[in-house]
């Protein structure tokens, strides 16, 4: 049992999607996250256990290695892809309510900003940490955030901005969200954003990378 979970975990960590994926070379020809997750479920392993014991720890290792500059964005994306192939089998259990997520995370790039790679990475890693992620896309108006927050009570919100000009829009959106939903936790990030700016605009948390956001979410859910 645990051996299978360990295998799934390392497939996700190293981006081994399925039997056909040539990467990593050492795992060529072997079954990947896709097949092994199916096998685990067929063997009666609980989907929640696969998530908690294999997928989430794998993504957490990936996030930590990224924070330490031991791996770079491409490997993080490959891991996310392997995770997604595993999730194909697990997702139905979410829908049936048999497996629960840690919470809902709403993310978007603020008004006037079209950058999405950084935001996508954060979304992926938070999903990999067991959260349901609602990605509102880029150039997201304050109204859209408000609507999403109303539809998902208790959700945490993440805002991304990559230009100093759009950081001003971030400030405005955070102010309005905090006024309407004082209890809602708001995370901010993006290249020019700093912890000091986060404090100034009264957001709850800033992280320079996805793992910091994941670690923070652990402390609140």
């Amino acid at each position: 049992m645990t051996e299978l979970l360990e295998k799934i975990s390392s497939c996700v960590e190293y981006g081994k999607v399925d039997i056909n994926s040539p990467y990593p070379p050492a795992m060529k020809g072997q079954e990947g996250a896709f097949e092994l997750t199916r096998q685990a479920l067929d063997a009666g392993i609980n989907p929640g256990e696969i998530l908690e014991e294999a997928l989430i720890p794998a993504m957490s290792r990936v996030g930590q290695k990224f924070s330490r500059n031991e791996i770079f964005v491409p490997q993080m994306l490959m891991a996310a892809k392997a995770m997604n192939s595993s999730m194909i089998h697990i997702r139905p259990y979410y829908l049936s309510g048999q497996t629960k997520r840690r919470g809902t995370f709403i993310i978007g790039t603020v008004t006037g900003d079209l950058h999405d790679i950084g935001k996508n990475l954060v979304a992926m890693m938070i999903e990999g940490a067991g959260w349901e992620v609602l990605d509102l896309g880029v150039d997201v108006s304050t109204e859209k955030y408000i609507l999403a927050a109303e539809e998902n009570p208790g959700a945490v919100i993440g805002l991304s901005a990559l230009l100093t000009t759009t950081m001003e829009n971030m400030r405005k959106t955070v102010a309005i969200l905090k006024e309407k939903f004082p209890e809602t936790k708001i995370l901010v990030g993006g290249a020019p954003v700093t912890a000091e700016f986060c404090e100034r605009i009264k957001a709850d948390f800033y992280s320079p990378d996805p793992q910091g956001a994941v670690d923070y979410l652990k402390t609140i859910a």
Partner: protein
Amino acid sequence: MGYEPGTAPEPVTLLIGEISEELMTIGESRAEYRIFDGISLDTARKTIGIGGIVFNVRPIIFRQLKDADAVALFICTAGPLIGEMSRKCMQEGDLLKGYVYDVIGSEIVENAADRMQEDIRETALSAGKKITNRFSPGYCGWDVAEQHTLFTFFRNNFCGITLTESALMNPVKSVSGIIGIGAGVRFAPYQCNMCDDKNCIYRNRKTKV
């Protein structure tokens, strides 16, 4: 992307090869520049004036431009296609490919800017002058919003770049800026020494891919 030479995982190097080849044949990048003589430099305010229009370039960039007697303003783009291809891949779930498109798009616009800079350098040289490095609004303390001023010099630009209210250029893979020209200006071979952004991924990029 951050990798030391030769250490990038195989799918990444393969994709880079594949996409570079594909994009080579498309060749959508464009650059446009205008050279202005008779500029006015205000040492106290650290500003540069061109025919009554003033750029507040701030001390770091001003120091590099202070000996110039002319400047080139430029805009440059990799074109809209690359961003669209990146987005399409991402939406279809091929995140890695989408990312490689994105990174190559940045590389293409930087290369186009390099070629344009070379062109300006040769023009300057034929007049017995030298050029500075290129500087962009949003770097080294120069407010990114000053792109609005810069774009007044490029109404109806043939690059097809538009500027949003928030000073974002569309297509995203675009750069804008200024280059100083003069007999007394210097080109800094290692530009990072004059900037203090420790988080910039371009820092030390010569040794990484």
